[in-house]
């Protein structure tokens, strides 16, 4: 609050009071947010480490005689194990595809002039106008024709396409902040254009690559709709869609097991984002944006 803002106000709080009020407001909203966002996570985690009976009893805290890790044994179940493997393959595939394509197209947008460049880049963003379910039905028909249903390649292509507009834009803007002279000095030294790209440009885009990787990871790991529609066979299903499938296939849902599975689904992105968050922020802190 500058002096100019408070000038002429009829009711004025002393700086000390304003400061306290501000801190109070900050704390209250922070607590609210944590409770709102955190409780479902807590509930999932709390129930994942209880016995079936413990789940039925409810209660905020698991009691000593109901605490157990036995629910995690569900991973050894061949179906669940297959889901995990499928999810991992698809996610790794999407992250790598997104990184490769965003680097190349981001570089192209940043360094070359071609007709309708800006229009093309804006057109990319149109993809975000449609919800996954709208896109997945026609994709199902197309993938069916191409024989890409139930294949890793089909889902990797789809999810990469969904992550791409954001990733390409981020990389484009990030590469714009790398002075062209740094690259030119490599050309002068005798490096062909691709070599300068690999040696000089790519290493400097690390924050943007990490931001893109996290984004693509989140999209691929958490995707439900596309996986559910495009991977109809049970063997090909990824974790989120598989969870849903398991829930529907059982007459008596064993909630503790589902919570354990959900927790395992949630942990990798959490860990991934936690360790790379400083890079994520760097990726967004682009001077030229």
């Amino acid at each position: 609050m500058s002096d100019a803002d408070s000038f002429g106000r009829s009711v004025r709080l002393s700086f000390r009071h304003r400061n306290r009020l501000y801190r109070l407001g900050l704390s209250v909203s922070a607590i609210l947010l944590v409770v709102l966002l955190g409780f479902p996570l807590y509930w999932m985690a709390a129930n994942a480490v209880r016995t079936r009976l413990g789940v039925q009893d409810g209660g905020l805290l698991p009691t000593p005689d109901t605490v157990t890790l036995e629910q995690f044994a569900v991973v050894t179940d061949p179906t669940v194990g297959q889901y995990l493997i499928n999810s991992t393959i698809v996610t790794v595939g999407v992250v790598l595809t997104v990184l490769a394509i965003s680097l190349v197209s981001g570089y192209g947008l940043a360094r070359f002039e071609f007709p309708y460049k800006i229009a093309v880049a804006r057109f990319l963003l149109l993809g975000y106008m449609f919800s996954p379910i709208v896109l997945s039905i026609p994709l199902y028909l197309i993938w069916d024709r191409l024989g890409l249903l139930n294949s890793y390649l089909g889902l990797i292509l789809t999810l990469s396409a969904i992550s791409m507009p954001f990733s390409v834009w981020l990389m484009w803007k990030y590469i714009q902040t790398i002075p062209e002279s740094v690259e030119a000095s490599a050309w002068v030294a005798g490096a062909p254009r691709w070599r300068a790209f690999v040696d000089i440009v790519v290493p400097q885009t690390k924050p943007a690559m990490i931001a893109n990787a996290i984004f693509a990871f989140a999209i691929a790991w958490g995707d439900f709709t596309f996986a559910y529609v495009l991977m109809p066979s049970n063997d090909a299903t990824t974790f989120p869609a598989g969870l849903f499938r398991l829930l529907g296939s059982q007459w008596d849902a064993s909630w503790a097991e589902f919570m354990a599975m959900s927790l395992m689904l949630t942990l990798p992105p959490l860990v991934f984002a936690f360790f790379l968050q400083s890079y994520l922020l760097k990726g967004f802190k682009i001077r030229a944006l």
Partner: protein
Amino acid sequence: MVSITLDDVTKEYGSLTAVDDLSLTIEDGEFVSLVGPSGCGKTTTLRMVAGLESVTSGQIRYGDRTVTTAPVQQRGVALLFQDIALYPHMTVEENIAYPLKLAGIDGSDRHERVVETASLLQVEDQLAKYPGDLSGGQQQRVALGRSIIREPTLFLFDEPMSDLDAKLKHELRPLFAEITDQVGCPTLYVTHDQEEAMTMSDRIAVMNDGHLEQIDTPDRVYRQPDTQFVGEFVGRPAMEFFDVRIEHGDDGSELLAGENLTLAHDGLNGYDGDDLRVGIRPQHLRVTERNSSGIPATHVFDETLGDRTHSLFETPLGRVTVETPADFRGSQTEYSIEIDVEKLSLYDPASGIRIG
């Protein structure tokens, strides 16, 4: 070792002509500065010589070899950029070694040559650091090291000192001169700072608006500017100009006459009755007590420089700067200004070209 030749080189961007019919030769081992105001085409010229910019028409030759269309990678030049352009993700050693790595030279040989180059530039104890940890002067040295390590055919500088403070510039100037001398290849140094050009060059090429105005030794560029623009651009404070007419005095002698100004001059018979522009450096103007022969002047302002003073006067010819002695203090009173006629340069007012 070769000389560099530009033959009628022109660069157009659409309808805009950035460089117009430029011809220039840099002899082997010669240090040529390309100087001019921003937007005059000097950097474009340098980029064409380097191969970073295509040439619209004309020819560029390194010795007998025509390189007009050769890509930058095949020209073997060294180029020092304005923003230094070190690779921020590589250590100093990796930076300097990068051209050798591209050339396919082994790790141990590479290290040896890097150490040799680094000690030449006094950065041998910085090799393990990253460019971001170095001072501005050290970064310049590293960039210099990276460009000379491959024994270039031609050395190019693109305003490498324009972002540096004055003290650092003074420190680096002799270093640049020394290093280019040691490397021994032709050097083209682009700058907008005429002082830099004057102090470092064998010859200065002054550019304006895409044209080469004059190319000559610093001394001649300063003493005998070919055009009004060169006179204005080179030397500080800038040359002063007055419009005059050529007239004949009662005794038949030639006079240059302007408002409140009459100067005896001869040897201009061909220009009888014509308008003319005279240029004179502030160093060749003299301030005296108010008298009838000089230009009446009212003192406005003094710039004290310690060893001399630049004094600004209001005269009927406009505001004029005069170089005065160190202890001169004008105190806003009346003076006269006298012109050293021997030192006049005469220009055609329309074209700005020197006629005497």
